[in-house]
């Protein structure tokens, strides 16, 4: 197992960590941008306007049915040329993850808003609250509680999906790993096992706490 020494080579772990940082950055930016997109999407989905309904339906279904990798390819190779967008690989990834995260989150928002019993609106009406007060003080706080656990889960999924960015050439943790494997292919031909093993563990270390947090929130707010 002396091939494990590849991990001790100067620069290897720092570079992997740097790569991981890119992964996290990519995921964080995508999640951060998904939130406003998701809120708007979710709100649009609750509207009764038939045209908006159909559009949102198609948007959601298309995003859901296409593999994320296919979406990445479409964004990276297709859209940039068609719309004269200068999307680099990272940009294409963020674009796709936000579209995808926004759609998923939008559906969660819709679900959360629709799951609030009508009686909550009616009580607020009877108490004289305005529509805006009802939304901000009654509906939203309840919706957020239903929303948050699922959103944290979505964040975990986004982190995992950022792994696909490597296939567009984004230099994130997997790509860095491949570069390291390549740079050491003469001295540590069996380094592959260890480098991929470490990357595997890194994803776990990032995603697992998120999953736990989601589960905790879910339990904590389950009975309220």
């Amino acid at each position: 197992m002396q091939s494990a020494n590849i991990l001790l080579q100067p620069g290897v772990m720092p570079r992997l960590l740097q790569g991981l940082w890119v992964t996290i950055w990519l995921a964080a930016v995508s999640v951060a941008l998904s939130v406003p997109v998701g809120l708007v999407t979710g709100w649009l989905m609750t509207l009764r306007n038939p045209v908006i309904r159909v559009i949102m339906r198609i948007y959601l279904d298309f995003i859901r049915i296409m593999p994320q990798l296919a979406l990445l390819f479409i964004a990276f190779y297709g859209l940039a040329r068609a719309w004269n967008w200068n999307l680099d690989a990272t940009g294409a990834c963020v674009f796709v993850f936000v579209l995808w995260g926004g759609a998923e989150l939008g559906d969660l928002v819709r679900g959360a808003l629709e799951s609030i019993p009508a009686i909550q609106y009616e009580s607020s009406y009877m108490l004289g609250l305005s529509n805006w007060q009802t939304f901000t003080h009654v509906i939203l706080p309840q919706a957020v509680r239903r929303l948050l656990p699922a959103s944290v889960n979505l964040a975990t999924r986004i982190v995992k999906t950022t792994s696909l960015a490597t296939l567009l050439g984004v230099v994130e943790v997997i790509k860095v790993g491949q570069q390291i494997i390549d740079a050491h292919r003469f001295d540590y031909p069996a380094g592959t096992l260890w480098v991929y093993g470490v990357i595997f563990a890194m994803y776990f270390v990032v995603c697992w706490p998120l999953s736990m947090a989601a589960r905790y929130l879910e339990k904590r707010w389950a009975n309220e």
Partner: protein
Amino acid sequence: MSEPMLTVDNLLKHYAGAERNVFDGISFDVPKGKVLVIIGPSGSGKSTLLRCVAGLEPIQGGTIALNGQVIDRGEPGNEKSGRAKRSSQLRTKIGMVFQSYDLFPNRTVLGNITMAPVMVQKRPKPDVEREAMELLKRVGLADRAQAKPHELSGGQRQRVAICRALIEHPELMLMDEVTAALDPEMVHEVLDVVLELADAGQTMLIVTHEMQFARAIADKVIMIDSGGIVETSDDPEAFFAHPTTQRAQEFLRTFEFSRHRRTEKDGAGAQTA
């Protein structure tokens, strides 16, 4: 009786898509300081009636007036228009307590009660909190002010819901089967509060299936069924003892269990199924 607080005149209500009208024009009034109890079989429209008065349902005909002022006028064809367009201020004049579970789950008991007066009536928060605590004491829940609704029993929740409506000093209170979702023991703790309210002169419109309670609290009773009023009575005691219409008699009988079937029992013996 004194002058009417609520006057419902020739009310017509139709749900979008429904085959027939829930009400084909019904009229009644609630005098100030009195309690009107509405009874009737399931599906007869008791909840709908309360919701119309509350402004939660659009009406298609007739008028609803509060203190002689028309607050809602029926418009044919507005089945889908949602809630009536009443001002916040008007809405605070009518309080409502629903069947159950309608406290705001994200606020404490105190937060639930103080929210509307502070946000709608713009009253100073300390005053409101002081009054809220008094109300809570009245319903026996002063020690639960900081609890979250999910920590309360059903009966406690309903008492909080009553406080939440009361703190706005509504002229009219609407109560729709406030104990229907409760365990029998809790029924009493809630209805005692309602009885006290009546004693204090609160004008109320109450829907209930608890006939004993109805009998005890009502100043006036109406029974509704299939779109109209079956029987009205200003003497609840007499009504519950001897309803005049056959429909009311039948209805009241469903709350009793006749023994005559039992008498044959000993004779029937072991020829069981």
